[in-house]
C-alpha cells in the first residue's frame, strides 16, 4: 500500500496538530482525528452562518465528514423579509429547500439539539439521536428575551409578533396589517443595541409606511426606539422618510420617537408601556432584546445573564474563547462586525477555512480581509446600502476600514433595489448551494 498525501496527513495528523494549535493561544483545542478516521465536524443551525460553513468545508476538504443539524424543514430568509411585511414580496419568494445542502454534506439531520457534552465531544437531539464530533460549529442565531418586557408571556406572544425570525411570524404580522382598518396605528418597538440587523427596524417602518401610503393613507406608523437615535444609515432613512412618507410634516406617515424603550406589553389592549407613557396601537410589533442562541448556553459558551449577551470567540477560527473545539458563528458571536446575513455567510467561510487546516494538522490560514454589504429597502421599489471592509489587526480582531462616503449610498435608488434583489439571489445560492 502506498500512502498518498492525504493519507499521510491523516496518519501524521496527531503529531502535526500541535503545530496548528500553537497558533491558537486562547484555546486548548483538540487536534485532528487520528488513526486514519475521517475528521468529523457537526454544524448546528443551517442559517447563513452554519449552512455556509458546512458547504465550504465540503468544497475545501471533501474528506471531512460534515453533519448539518437544522430544526426547520425549510430555509426562510430574514434579509428581504420586511418586503413581505410591506406586501411587496411573498414569503414563498424567500423560502428555499435544503436539497442543495443535502446533496453536499454527509448527513443532513432535521432535529433539535437538546444537550452537548463538550468534554466527551458528543451531542444529543430531541429525537434521541447521538452524534460525536472532533469540532462542533454552533450557528443558532439569536435568542429573543421576552422576559425583559413585562407581559410578553406565552399568551401575549399568540397575538403580538416580533417578526425578527423570518417565517410564520413574518406572515402573521403581514396578515395583521392587512386586517387593520384605514386610520389605524401600527406601533413598532425596536430592541436596544446590539441586535440582529441594525437597519432592520427603520427599513420595516419604511415598508409599512409604503403599504399605508398606497392602501391605507389615513394610517400611521409609530416607531418606539429603545435607543437614543436611529442606529444605522440615519441620514438615508431620514431622507427616505421625508421623500416618501412626509416625515417632518403634520401629515407624516411615520412618527419617530427616540429613547422610548418598551417596558411592558398588554396584548389584550394592544398597549406598549414606556417609562412615562402608554402607547396604544391597532397592530403592535414588539422586538424584544436579544442575546446569543440557547445552543451556546447548552455547551457553556454563553456568558452569564447580566454580562455580555454574545459569545467571545477567537476571530482566526471562530472558536469559543471558553469552550475548546466549539466554534460559534453569526449573530451569536461577540464581534465588532454587524449582526448581518453577509457577515454570517463570510464568517462561515472563515471558520471553514480554519477548520480545514486545524483538522489536517496544519497552521491556520488567516483571512486578511472580509467585507459586508447590506441593502435596505426604503420603499417597494427603492433601496440603499452600507458597505464595510474589515481587516485583521495584530490581535486578530476585524477592524472596519475607512471607505469613501462612509461606505453608504449617496442617495437611495431603484438601481439599488435591483442590486438588493440580485444580492438576495446570490447569497441564498452561495449559502444553500442552490443552482444559479
Amino acid at each position, binding site marked *: 500500500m502506498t500512502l498518498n498525501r492525504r493519507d499521510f496527513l491523516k496518519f501524521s495528523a496527531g503529531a502535526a496538530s500541535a503545530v496548528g494549535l500553537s497558533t491558537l493561544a486562547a484555546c486548548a483545542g483538540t487536534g485532528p482525528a487520528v488513526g486514519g478516521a475521517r475528521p468529523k465536524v457537526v454544524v448546528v443551525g443551517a442559517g447563513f452562518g452554519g449552512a455556509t460553513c458546512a458547504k465550504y468545508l465540503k468544497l475545501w476538504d471533501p474528506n471531512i465528514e460534515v453533519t448539518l443539524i437544522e430544526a426547520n424543514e425549510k430555509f426562510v430568509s430574514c434579509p428581504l423579509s420586511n418586503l413581505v411585511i410591506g406586501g411587496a414580496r411573498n414569503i414563498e419568494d424567500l423560502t428555499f429547500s435544503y436539497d442543495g445542502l443535502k446533496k453536499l454534506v454527509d448527513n443532513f439531520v432535521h432535529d433539535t439539539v437538546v444537550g452537548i457534552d463538550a468534554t466527551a465531544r458528543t451531542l444529543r437531539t430531541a429525537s434521541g439521536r447521538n452524534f460525536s464530533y472532533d469540532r462542533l460549529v454552533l450557528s443558532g442565531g439569536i435568542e429573543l428575551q421576552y422576559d425583559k418586557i413585562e407581559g410578553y408571556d406565552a399568551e401575549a406572544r399568540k397575538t403580538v409578533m416580533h417578526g425578527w425570525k423570518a417565517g410564520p411570524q413574518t406572515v402573521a404580522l403581514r396578515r395583521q396589517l392587512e386586517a387593520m382598518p384605514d386610520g389605524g396605528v401600527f406601533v413598532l418597538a425596536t430592541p436596544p443595541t446590539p441586535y440582529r440587523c441594525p437597519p432592520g427596524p427603520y427599513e420595516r417602518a419604511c415598508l409599512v409606511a409604503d403599504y399605508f401610503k398606497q392602501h391605507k393613507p389615513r394610517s400611521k406608523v409609530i416607531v418606539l426606539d429603545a435607543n437614543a437615535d436611529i442606529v444605522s444609515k440615519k441620514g438615508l432613512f431620514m431622507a427616505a422618510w421625508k421623500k416618501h412618507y412626509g416625515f417632518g410634516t403634520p401629515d407624516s406617515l411615520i412618527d419617530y420617537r427616540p429613547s422610548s424603550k418598551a417596558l411592558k406589553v398588554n396584548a389584550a389592549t394592544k398597549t406598549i408601556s414606556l417609562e412615562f407613557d402608554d402607547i396604544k396601537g391597532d397592530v403592535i410589533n414588539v422586538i424584544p432584546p436579544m442575546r446569543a442562541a440557547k445552543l451556546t448556553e447548552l455547551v457553556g459558551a454563553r456568558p452569564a445573564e447580566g454580562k455580555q449577551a454574545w459569545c467571545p470567540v477567537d476571530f482566526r477560527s471562530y472558536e469559543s474563547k471558553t469552550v475548546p473545539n466549539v466554534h460559534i458563528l453569526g449573530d451569536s458571536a461577540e464581534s465588532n462586525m454587524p449582526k448581518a446575513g453577509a457577515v454570517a455567510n*463570510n464568517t462561515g467561510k*472563515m471558520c471553514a477555512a480554519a477548520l480545514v487546516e486545524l483538522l489536517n494538522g496544519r497552521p491556520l490560514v488567516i483571512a486578511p480581509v472580509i467585507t459586508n454589504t447590506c441593502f435596505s429597502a426604503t420603499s417597494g421599489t427603492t433601496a440603499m446600502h452600507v458597505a464595510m471592509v474589515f481587516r485583521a489587526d495584530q490581535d486578530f480582531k476585524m477592524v472596519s476600514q475607512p471607505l469613501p462616503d462612509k461606505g453608504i449610498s449617496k442617495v437611495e435608488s431603484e438601481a439599488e433595489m435591483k442590486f438588493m434583489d*440580485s444580492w438576495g439571489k446570490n447569497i441564498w445560492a452561495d449559502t444553500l448551494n442552490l443552482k444559479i
Partner: protein
Amino acid sequence: MNKAFLLCGLLAVAQGAIASTDGVDKTVRFMAANCAYCHGPDGRSTSAIPSLAGMHKTRFVGSMKAMKAGTQASLVMYQIAAGYSDAEIDAMGDWFANNK
C-alpha cells in the same frame, strides 16, 4: 510564476498566511469566496450584480483600480475597492480569470 502570483505570495507571507503546497493560495481563495454573497457562488451571478468568474484579468484589475481611484462610476464597488490593496486586487484578478 508570474508577477502577480509572486506579489500575492509576498502579501500572504506578510500577513502571516500560509500558502498551501498543492498550488492553491488559500488566502486568495478566501478573498475570492468572500465576494460570493454579492457576486454569486464562485463569482457566477445571473442577475443585476455582475459575474466575476472568467473575467479577463485586465478588466477586473482595471475596473477595481479605477473605482478605487474614483475615475469609474459605481454604486457600491468604489467603496469596497478602496478597502483592498493593489496587490490583493491583482491576486483576485488572477483568481477570477482562472476560475471560469
